[in-house]
């Protein structure tokens, strides 16, 4: 894959990021309602309010505020959180690895589960197996991720599955403090299998809730693409070669179905990232999604702003990841 391709993608992300920054600014400053009113408690005096306005630069003109805002963003300065009294950047970076790991696990689950469903459906083409896969995908897709999360919790409670934790990220009895936030990776590298197991167990249900809708979409699109590939001449050649149906579906057709599948499901991966906001809240999972809801409830303006921008960057990163995998999977693009 060519580097110019990657570079072009990165450059294209810049105007989008700028647009996102502008909209965040507009939403949080220009929308009716004084942002200071969001910050202060009921007992604040006029002097307190004036002091706060000066502190956050809100006594300047909107245009000037915008310039300061962009300058701060460019310098990586997201301001100070009001509720936590800490640098927003530090706070966000502290929690970001949690969400990244959760998303990656969820994406793996989605691709694995959706892929397995698609392969099963294509293998049993035109028989009850395919109908079962179609039905399952339709049912899964009809229920959004946050309802799946709640249904899982109900399931665990009603059937008293005490082994499956429904809140937090690591067991209280596990003494493991990572040097980084990437507990899964770090515990594995340091061979702390107890910690790895605990984090994994805590991650299963939120990751599954996030993964299910994407898995259903991957299953549908991939199955259609495989079926389409199965009508091609090279499949006839594969049959003449004497390959088994499993091998033809899983090797000859699957490889060719991947590129259209990535094209058609790419956007859905960003939806998975967006889903962390609520799913993390429901499972008390300490990532940036959970933090975002707390920030909104605490009316912590700088933190909200930092988190929205962080999510936008995550979205763009996921899109980039999709583009890269697209290029890697497509033989025509590998040797440009």
């Amino acid at each position, binding site marked *: 894959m060519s580097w110019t391709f990657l570079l072009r993608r990165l450059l294209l992300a810049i105007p*989008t990021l700028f647009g996102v920054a502008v909209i965040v600014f507009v939403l949080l400053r220009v929308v009716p309602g004084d942002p200071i009113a969001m910050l202060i408690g009921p007992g604040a005096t006029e002097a307190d309010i004036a002091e706060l306005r000066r502190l956050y630069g809100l006594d300047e003109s909107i245009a000037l505020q915008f310039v300061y805002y962009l300058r701060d963003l460019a310098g990586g300065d997201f301001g100070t959180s009001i509720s936590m009294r800490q640098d927003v950047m530090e706070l966000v970076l502290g929690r970001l690895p949690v969400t990244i790991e959760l998303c990656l696990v969820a994406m793996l689950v989605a691709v694995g589960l959706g892929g397995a469903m698609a392969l099963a459906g294509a293998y049993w083409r035109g028989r009850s197996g395919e109908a079962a896969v179609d039905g399952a995908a339709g049912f899964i897709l*009809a229920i959004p991720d946050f309802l799946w999360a709640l249904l899982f*919790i109900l399931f665990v409670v009603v059937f008293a599955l005490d082994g499956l934790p429904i809140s937090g990220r690591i067991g209280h009895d596990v003494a493991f403090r990572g040097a980084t936030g990437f507990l899964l990776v770090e515990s594995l590298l340091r061979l702390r299998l107890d910690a790895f197991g605990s984090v994994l167990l805590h991650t299963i249900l939120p990751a599954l809730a996030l993964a299910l809708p994407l898995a259903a979409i991957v299953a549908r699109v991939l199955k259609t693409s495989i079926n389409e590939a199965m009508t091609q001449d090279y499949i006839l050649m594969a049959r003449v070669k004497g390959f088994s149906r499993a091998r033809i579906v899983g090797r000859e057709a699957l490889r060719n179905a991947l590129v259209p599948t990535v094209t058609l499901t790419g956007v859905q991966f960003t939806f998975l990232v967006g889903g962390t*906001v609520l799913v993390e809240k429901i499972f008390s999972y300490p990532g940036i999604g959970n933090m975002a809801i707390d920030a909104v409830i605490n009316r912590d303006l700088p933190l909200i702003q930092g988190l929205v921008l962080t999510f936008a960057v995550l979205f763009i990163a996921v899109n980039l990841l999709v583009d890269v995998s697209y290029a890697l999977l497509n033989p025509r693009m590998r040797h440009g």
Partner: protein
Amino acid sequence: MAEAAAVTGAASPTGGTARRLLANPRVVLGGAVLVFFALAALFAPLIAPHDPVEQDLLLQYVPPAWSDKAEAGYLFGTDNLGRDILSRLIYGARVALFVAVAAAAAAGLLGTALGLLAGYLGGWVDTVISRLVEIWMAFPAVLLSIVLVAVMGTGLHSVIIAIAVIDWTRFCRVVRAETMAQKQQDYVASAVTVGLGRMRILWREILPNVLPLLIVLFTLEMGIAVIVEAILSYVNLSLASDFPTWGGMISDGRKYVNQAPWLMILPILCVIALVLALNALGDGLKDALDPVMRR
């Protein structure tokens, strides 16, 4: 409700459409469930057995009727404050459906207007609007809606505005593409040669042809709005928490899930049933109206 009016409105030009709609099982089934919820919402004061906000601390956590510890008169039991769950579900349908219709209409108006303009005028207008849509898509929708409501203050109007502000892009993208396709058709060319003005052509010639598509989008958007409203009331941003909303009931249920799991089951089932019905109706309408759209 608005659904039925819209469907018959589309059906009137061609008599066959109504029959085709009734022959589609997804339309019938989805429509039936929707009507069921709509009736419950409309006649809530008449059919709810109790006041939905009335607390009775002597009757906390009464389990549903099928349990042996049930109380007479409380079919689905009571919640942590002794409020009747059935009555709260019925009133919750009011909020859910009101938000669904209003938010889908608002998002539809905004998105359709911009989509028509972008698709018909093209040029820099199209460039600006398309670019805006792209940027919009780079936002996490759920987080954005939560932030918007937090900025505007809680309340139904904020929820509706937030959904419209976020989801107008769904309408805009589809309507823009459809308008561009319609623009190539002969009837638009003949309208231009007759000397009709641009806005008149948009309003009188193109909009009616995009309408079947809009009905489908509107139905699907109602489903999304139901989910978003549930999300917002789940995080306590929709209505005051004692007012019955399905999301709020789910949120209470999550807190007391260990004592009373039934608090959560029923509102979740309501959301799922209504969303499934709206999706089925939308997909069924898409199939049934498709020949009309191609004409």
